[in-house]
């Protein structure tokens, strides 16, 4: 069924009246315009044949990857002891790409259930932060959580991990580290990130910018998400030269 019957009847009667003397092609074009109105844009998630599987571990707020397949794992997931673990944003991105099937207690999770993991605060990623993450990943950048090691020998025990949270929860925090697109990226020697990212709905004050830049060894950029669009900004303190 293409159009709801009352809409189809309306449109057909209008088109007949307006385009009566016109050519058949114009009537067909007008009908196509009307049907395009109801087009659903966006992409379809198709699960690939070589998709990996992972089980969501709610205790640590990460997915345990059972059988990693494909080159994506060179730039996604952290290694703890011998396990390959994914954050919620990495997990969702791979599910959207069709590269990962996520299970919970053995049952495959639907896409919208996977997205609901973003609403759980302890998983550490908001919908806004996820939009920023996927924006960069789609462009080929390598993205990790700020100050989180790619590999470590210790097993991950609980949700309160590796984040030194000396700033209060109300102030702005650095969320991601962004590395240059690199097909030879190695988790064992990732190098230095290009910059760190802060995700915020409100524009930063001068003090907030200063605090974040002081606490970071690499440049800091600010990301905002509004109406699904991601905008990245930098606020760089400069000193203009005195000109002669």
């Amino acid at each position, binding site marked *: 069924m293409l159009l709801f019957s009352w809409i189809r009847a309306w*449109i057909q009667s209008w088109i007949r009246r*307006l385009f009566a003397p016109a050519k058949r092609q114009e009537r067909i074009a007008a009908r196509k315009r009307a049907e395009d*109105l109801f087009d659903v844009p966006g992409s379809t998630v198709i699960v690939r044949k070589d998709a990996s599987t992972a089980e969501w571990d709610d205790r640590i707020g990460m997915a345990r990857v059972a059988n990693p397949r494909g080159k994506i794992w060179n730039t996604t997931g952290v290694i703890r002891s011998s396990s390959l673990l994914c954050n919620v944003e990495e997990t969702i991105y791979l599910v959207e790409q069709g590269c990962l099937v996520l299970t919970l207690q053995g049952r495959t999770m639907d*896409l919208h259930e996977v997205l609901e993991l973003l609403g759980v605060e302890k998983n550490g990623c908001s919908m806004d932060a996820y939009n920023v993450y996927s924006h960069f990943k789609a462009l080929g950048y390598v993205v990790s959580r700020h100050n989180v090691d790619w590999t470590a020998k210790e097993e991950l025990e609980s949700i309160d991990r590796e984040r030194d949270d000396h700033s209060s929860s109300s102030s702005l925090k650095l969320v991601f580290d962004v590395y240059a697109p690199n097909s030879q990226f190695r988790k064992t020697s990732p190098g230095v990130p290009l910059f760190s990212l802060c995700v915020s709905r409100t524009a930063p004050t001068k003090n907030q910018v200063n605090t974040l830049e002081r606490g970071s060894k690499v440049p800091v950029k600010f990301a905002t998400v509004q109406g*699904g669009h991601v905008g990245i900004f930098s606020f760089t303190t400069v000193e203009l030269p005195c000109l002669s």
Partner: protein
Amino acid sequence: MSRWKGRGAKAVAEAAPLSGLYDEIRRWSARLECALSASGGTLVANRQQARLLCATGFGSDVLSTPDRRGDGEDLATTHVFQLMLEEVFYLSYELDCLRVHRQSSQGRVDLTLEELWCLMQEFNREFVKIYKAYSHLRNKRWVVRPGPQYGADFMAYRHHPTLVHSDYAVLVISVDDPQSRLASWTDVQGMTRLCGSVAKTLLVLYIIVDMGHDLSSPTYLERIKVEEVEVRRWLPQKHREDSQ
């Protein structure tokens, strides 16, 4: 003067008016599930519902997944939309087609309309004013889309963005606030020139809030007045012949 995109666009818009499409939404037999977070809502719809939501200009970043329960060639698809906070509330309050829940430490919590109203104010201090502006335009059957790409709060269209260019870039200003926006001529110049460069008119919606009333119920919206002001730059050079 509206700018319709191509022949037949105006006819299609007249054949499928927004009020008719809204009535179709109100007639849905089941409410759609929507997961709420501070960034907005995530909604799941079937194909028919998704087509109607797209035609009425709600949501962005649509992801489609084939329904695993379907079989044979004609797989039913589910579509996942991301909604702004204003869209979530409008769909709940005016079109009554959503069932909104959020994730808390106790698990999934369904929200009543009043709880939703109060929660949105926690997520965004300016929610009441922004929402009043949004619903004011939507109730007049304009299509309201996010505006930050154009430096505005919203973009207002006479019908679907595929049929018509937007008439207005909308800025929401509260009469009470000590003029936080358009506070100086530089601001006015900046906004009007920005709008002019994308061939849109700046529409300011002044929100006049009646203080001393109960903010905890959405019926408060009826006590808020909106005044519409078009801000334009007038060029004497171009109008010399007008009076002759």
